[in-house]
């Protein structure tokens, strides 16, 4: 029987480890966070906003319950009443049992999707507090294994799948030949390390490793638009699993790599592949982690492609995509990222039948794969169950294709498709747009 290493690590925690976790938690508590930890009145409005609670109706899945786990510790160690009359204010001891509960609820029952925060009557950013608690656990190496190993691989190998640079470069060369065949132009390029181009395009390592068609699709769109752009042979990974594990130092290292590539290449705009958390991390969080403002522009590829259509730099034929298409809104692109209409604009130009799922946009439900859930195998059955609401949403649209501008969502949607027998296919928005491209071969 394989040992549960996480459980062993929890059993071996010493008082000094627990103190260290508390100290990291304390460092996170600025005025805003303290206000959040002091405001919840347990009204329960958040209950129906959470895909976990809707799936299992387990009190431990309630966002207010998860928040309360952090509140109990905050009160016990950092509040006057909690220190003096803990029993009266719900203050809780931070011990191995509590660490176990934090792991189960704050790693295992949350995708950091922010839907509860949106529905909170008091405006508490519950997912901020949950991430802060994850940071405390990460500081003492208590992170579920698949999530931790993805962070470790990225730190050690430069990208989260440990792809050697040579293999990445060879894959791009191979795809360049495919592109040339597809557009009928031997001059078509997928540029590598080209200095001074307008755009640097950062990708998700899973694309060259296992799913290269999404790279080819974007290459084809750039070709059609006559774009000045480049890949980089290193520091190209758009993902940032430190964002999920709560390890800010690791997150800063990963974000810093994209900055290094921008400096090395001298490009104007960092363009991020369809990766929800990668977008949130690079565009919104990185300046915090790095303590430095970006001196370049950061855009999602969705913004870039929407601009091409608007400026008539590319032409699409919606008849090329005649199957009914619906759209999944990745939490980190939409609710937490602010990229809402671009993907709709692209799809309305690229497909003949587009149907929204309901609810949508910032009110959309998480697919259930975010927050590092896909990497945390120990919670995978729960993840599939929590995805039921998404499966129902998709089924109701009658769509055959689910567009999802996030590779992480695509994997969860593919899993849901198999588990709930939906009979759909999940694709990136750019894959769909590339299929509709009209290439002028003259």
């Amino acid at each position, binding site marked *: *029987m*394989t040992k549960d290493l996480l459980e062993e690590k929890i059993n071996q925690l010493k008082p000094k480890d627990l103190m260290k976790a508390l100290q990291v938690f304390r460092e996170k508590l600025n005025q805003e966070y303290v206000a959040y930890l002091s405001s919840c009145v347990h009204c329960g409005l958040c209950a129906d906003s959470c895909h976990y609670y809707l799936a299992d109706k387990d009190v431990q899945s309630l966002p207010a319950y998860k928040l309360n786990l952090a509140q109990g510790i905050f009160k016990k160690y950092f509040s006057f009443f909690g220190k003096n009359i803990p029993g009266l204010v719900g203050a809780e001891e931070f011990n191995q049992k509590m660490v176990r509960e934090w792991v189960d609820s704050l790693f295992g029952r949350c995708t950091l999707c922010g839907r509860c925060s949106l529905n909170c009557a008091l405006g508490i950013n519950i997912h901020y507090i949950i991430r802060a608690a994850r940071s405390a656990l990460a500081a003492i190496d208590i992170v579920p294994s*698949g999530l931790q*190993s*993805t962070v470790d*691989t990225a730190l050690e190998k430069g990208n*989260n*799948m*440990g*792809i050697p640079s040579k*293999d990445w470069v*060879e*894959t791009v060369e*191979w795809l360049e030949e495919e592109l040339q065949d597809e557009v009928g132009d031997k001059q078509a390029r997928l540029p590598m390390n080209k200095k001074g181009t307008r755009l640097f395009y950062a990708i*998700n*390592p*899973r694309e*060259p*490793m*296992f*799913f*290269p*068609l999404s790279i080819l699709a974007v290459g084809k769109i750039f070709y059609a638009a006559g774009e000045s752009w480049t890949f980089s042979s290193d520091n190209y990974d758009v*993902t940032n699993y430190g964002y999920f594990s709560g390890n800010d130092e690791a997150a800063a290292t990963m974000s810093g790599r994209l900055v290094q590539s921008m400096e090395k290449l001298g490009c104007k705009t960092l363009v991020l592949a369809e*990766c929800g958390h990668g977008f949130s991390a690079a565009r919104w969080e990185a300046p915090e982690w790095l303590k430095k403002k970006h001196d370049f522009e950061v855009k999602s590829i969705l913004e870039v492609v929407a601009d091409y259509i608007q400026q008539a730099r590319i032409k699409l034929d919606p008849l090329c995509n005649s199957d009914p298409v619906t759209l999944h809104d990745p939490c980190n692109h939409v609710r937490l990222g602010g990229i809402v209409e671009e993907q709709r604009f692209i799809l309305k130009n690229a497909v003949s039948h587009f149907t929204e799922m309901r609810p949508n946009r910032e009110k959309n439900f998480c697919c259930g794969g975010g927050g590092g859930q*896909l*990497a945390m*195998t*120990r*919670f*995978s*059955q729960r993840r599939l169950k929590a995805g039921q609401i998404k499966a129902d949403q998709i089924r109701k649209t009658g769509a055959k294709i689910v567009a999802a501008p996030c*590779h*992480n969502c695509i*994997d969860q949607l*593919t*899993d849901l498709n*198999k588990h709930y027998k939906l009979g759909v296919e999940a694709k990136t928005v750019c894959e769909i747009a590339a299929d509709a491209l009209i290439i002028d071969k003259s």
Partner: protein
Amino acid sequence: MPFIEVKGKKIEVNEEGFLANHEDWAKEVAELLAKEEEGIENLTDDHWAVINYIRNYYLEKKLAPMVRKLCKNTGFKLKYIFELFPSGPARGACKVAGLPKPDGCV
């Protein structure tokens, strides 16, 4: 952790059906994983070409091969690999070949 049973022997898998210990792999294990995880009743020579390449590459390098190498060495088009293993190279072919779940967004 859950188990699968092959020829009366219990073999440990993780919650997503990947082998817990890649040494437990055998031809019969692959056949069972293919059936239960991928819905493939009979593994053809083409399936085996993919499985054997992935497995040997992993045993040598402790890493799954890039899909480019898989295509190049088997002579199969990418689209055909997805036809052989509907869940794709990661959750389909690598799982049947007995590899542990890869790190990253998969």
